[in-house]
């Protein structure tokens, strides 16, 4: 790795650590939580926060992961293995009520009337008014219940004030103006909280440089071509068989696997009444 890359890496990490320290000055670590998907970004993020905690002698905040019911087994294995290795008490969050109503089977129909009060209220909130929907990563209602609702519920029940996320500015044009800290006002069924993304200034290339430079663990799916990992049924490899970091990262969108595009397309189609 070139000298420039190494120097850049030192600066990137120092900037991230500053953000983390700043976060711990403003918020009680006991009221913070770290999201970790097992993907490359949130693993890098966790690695940096963990270092600051060790350096500053602060207890690592609660680490959480959301089981959307459609995870790659490779990701689940990765989370289990690295939790052990890094001594992390990982909290697995899941919308069990929803899994119960479809017998945990992807594609099964979920009857809205079988869901609990909170889930029904959440569906009303997003103006979903059909009687049933299939449990799949691409279903709008399913996605909302398995992810957003689970997270909101956790924040509420644990009184979390600050959530560590792993967004990167270069992920989409719309994020160019993003700040490290974003405050979320309380809304209907959405508790007030702040989100912070210490690795906001990392690019996809920086993530891989950092991973290799410091020998960070990563999910083996990246090695066979995935560049962005989401739910199993909605993630596709970029170039099959070519490790993510050897692909044309600078010119081919990270989501050529198209998870986000799919979500965007689905969201627009839903607004047009097609979903």
């Amino acid at each position, binding site marked *: 790795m070139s000298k420039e890359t190494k120097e850049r890496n030192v600066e990137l990490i120092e900037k991230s650590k500053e953000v983390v320290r700043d976060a711990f000055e403003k918020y009680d670590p006991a009221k913070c939580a770290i999201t970790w998907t097992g993907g490359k970004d949130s693993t890098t993020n966790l690695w940096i926060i963990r270092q600051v905690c060790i350096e500053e002698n602060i207890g690592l905040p609660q680490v959480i992961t959301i089981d959307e019911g459609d995870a790659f087994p490779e990701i689940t294995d990765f989370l289990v293995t690295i939790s052990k290795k890094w001594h992390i008490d990982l909290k697995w969050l899941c919308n069990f009520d929803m899994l119960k109503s479809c017998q945990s089977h992807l594609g099964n129909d979920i009857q809205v009337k079988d869901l609990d009060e909170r889930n029904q209220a959440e569906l009303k909130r997003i103006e979903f008014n059909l009687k049933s929907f299939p449990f799949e990563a691409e279903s709008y209602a399913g996605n909302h219940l398995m992810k957003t609702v689970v997270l909101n519920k956790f924040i509420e029940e644990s009184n979390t004030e600050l959530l560590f996320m792993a967004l990167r500015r270069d992920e*989409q*044009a*719309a994020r160019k103006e993003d700040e490290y800290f974003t405050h979320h006002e309380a809304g209907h069924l959405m508790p007030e909280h702040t989100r912070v993304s210490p690795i906001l200034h990392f690019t996809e290339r920086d993530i891989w440089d950092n991973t290799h430079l410091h020998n960070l663990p990563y999910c083996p799916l990246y090695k066979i071509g995935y560049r962005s990992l989401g739910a199993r049924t909605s993630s596709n490899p970029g170039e099959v068989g070519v490790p993510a970091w050897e692909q044309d990262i600078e010119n081919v*969108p990270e989501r050529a696997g*198209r998870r*986000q*595009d*799919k979500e*965007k*397309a*689905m*969201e*627009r*189609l839903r*607004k*047009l*009444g*097609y*979903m």
Partner: protein
Amino acid sequence: MKNVILLTIDTLRKDVLGCYGNQNKLTPFIDSLQNKSIKFTNAQSTGPYTQASFPGILTSSYYLEYGRQKKCSPKRTLISEVLKKSGITTAGFHSNPYLCGYFGWNRGWDVFYDSMQDEVSDKIPYIKGDGINRKVDQWLSSYIEDDHYRPFFLWTHYMDVHEPYIPAREYLNKVDPSINLSEDDMLDLFKEIILKRDISDQKTVKLLKKLYDAGVRETDDYVKNFFKILEKYGVLKDSVVIITTDHGDEFGEHHGLSHDGKMYAELINSPLLIYYYNCTQEVGDNLVSNIDIPPTILYLFGLEPSEAFKGHSFLPLENYPQKRAFGEAIGKTSNQEKETDQPIYFYRENDLKIIYQESDKSWEMYNLNEDPQELNNLINISDKSKDMKKKIMSQITR
């Protein structure tokens, strides 16, 4: 001639254009193009909604040929793929989610803008025509740097006529200044009337048609600005422009709204103009289909026909062999397609059109000469029924 430009306007009914007889002056600019165009009076779409029709327009194949898939099958060949291989630059700009990269329509394009990375307004979930034009302008400004640029194929698609029918105030005023609706009111109409397919109140249906008409008037200005951009970069005189739609829209003609899985005139009849600055006005009354567009584009570029394409070039007019058209879709009855919805087909030969719906095995046949609105079902009285049934079945079981 150097370039070919395909301009498609989503959901554009043939009968709203002045050049096809509409008296409401909704398309003054497009109408002005007919002096330098071949105007087709019998163009048919291959299907009544985007997913059913665009396989015809961009891949010269029918919707259900490769099974019932949401994505553009890798077995289809896009016109962009053929052209790119021939050294022609290909650029596409649109904002129809069903045609985005995720659904596989990004193959073969040197430049492909599907707007999925951009933010759209909450009420109108697509980039409007002016936004699409800006993208085209940006691309052309960098592409046409010297006079020796490579020939290009440009596809531009506007969504503005498509529901939720929220036209800009300015255009609503041109259609009917007495309509006093806010954007929220219009969105409510879309949700309460269009999505529920509620045609119980004739007045509301007429009001919705006016909102639709205003969208047409608005789009005509986008087309005008698009031509201005082509002129600004000096490419208009070097380009043939094909203007058409993917399908029409219904306002109660057959007891429905929007564009479901039906095969009637208001959805299947398409406007089709081929503009060239040096062309003299001509009318083509051949029965042509949008499946013929990719072969026509190859013809215009002077390229050999492709075996991947089912259609025939409709140019030169006198060589066009077909006198029949076919289309297929899923007979869905709302915006949302259900797994249990069954296919529907139409087949047309001269003035006869037969429709077969698989769900209830029902047949309809219309004589378009006597009954252009397709209201008088002849299937049980015409002596041509048997022959037409045979012909459509041979298409279905191809």
